[in-house]
């Protein structure tokens, strides 16, 4: 169609012909575009968490006469949670490696382990929330607790969503095999799962460790 061009001799590809920045080779392939978009989404999620952290930092001292950080948090539980999540992330990486080699059995095994460890994490978190609420330290007690439950709960909600996604992914891999679009989604899932780890590092440091320093 519309092909008025001043230098018809030049072909379509410009590989190495011009040093004008990325993108001179035309649109990237889907295997780049899709995860990149997802990466942007993850970054915007990080911004979301930064607002929650900012709220928490502002309100952490507003306990309104109620319990404060050092009375509520138990480091040993948090340590277990952290290790569960870390190993889950690691195993998710293993699943990616086996998936790339199209090894169905091991991929599924690693994904199951990933999910189970995620469940362990979630279980401990729910247990912690449960005991706090039972002790009268629920989110309605004070601004500090509102912001605590919202920040940590939002991470927990992300983990829950991740687990639902993981289940869907496993079913898809099982039913459809390692097709390119399934692999792209699996890659996105792993990015998501690792990102949750990064956020958790911030949470356990800021909320649980710094919060309970003497």
């Amino acid at each position: 169609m519309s092909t008025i061009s001043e230098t018809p001799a030049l072909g379509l590809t410009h590989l190495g012909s011009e040093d004008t920045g990325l993108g001179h080779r035309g649109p990237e392939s889907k295997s780049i575009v899709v995860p990149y978009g997802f990466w942007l989404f993850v970054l915007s999620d990080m911004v979301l968490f930064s607002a929650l952290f900012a709220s928490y930092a502002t309100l952490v001292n507003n306990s309104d006469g109620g319990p404060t950080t050092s009375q509520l948090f138990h480091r040993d539980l948090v340590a277990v949670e952290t290790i569960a999540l870390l190993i889950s992330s690691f195993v998710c990486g293993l699943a990616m490696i086996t998936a790339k080699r199209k090894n169905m059995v091991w991929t599924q095994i690693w994904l199951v382990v990933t999910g189970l460890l995620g469940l362990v994490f979630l279980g401990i978190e729910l247990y912690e929330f449960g005991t706090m609420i039972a002790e009268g330290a629920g989110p309605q007690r004070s601004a500090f607790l509102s912001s605590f439950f919202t920040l940590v709960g939002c991470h927990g909600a992300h983990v829950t969503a991740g687990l639902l996604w993981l289940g869907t992914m496993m079913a898809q891999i099982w039913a459809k095999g390692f097709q390119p679009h399934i692999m792209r989604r699996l890659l996105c899932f792993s990015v998501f799962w690792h990102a949750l780890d990064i956020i958790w590092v911030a949470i356990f440091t800021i909320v649980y460790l710094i919060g309970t320093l003497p």
Partner: protein
Amino acid sequence: MTEHDADQLNVAPGEPHDSMLSETISYVIGLGLALLLTGVSFWVASTGVLWGPGVATGLVVLAIAQMGVHLVFFLHITSGPDNTNNVLALAFGVLIVVLVMVGTIFIMSHMNSNMGPMQDMTNLQAQRG
């Protein structure tokens, strides 16, 4: 243009691109470092050996280090030329995160110290006294 060409110049975030062994090793190193840093964090927070006021700073540094480990070994974000766009996006994200957190904390701490109830209590005493 084939996907293969593209892959040489540009990679997707999170995508490991080596042999099985080196990929696995990368994850293992990542896990090891992360566990180590986590352990150190918990130790730093509970030991009495260290100078108290410095502990919080130390913990923040450890957390940042650990995030770096996750980014490099799990998310495979490196400084290589193929990663430019991923890193740029990350840099933008980090900038915004820092602005939101530092800005808010900076502003709100001033607000609270100028107007918060804490200061009123001291005033109350000053007035009464």
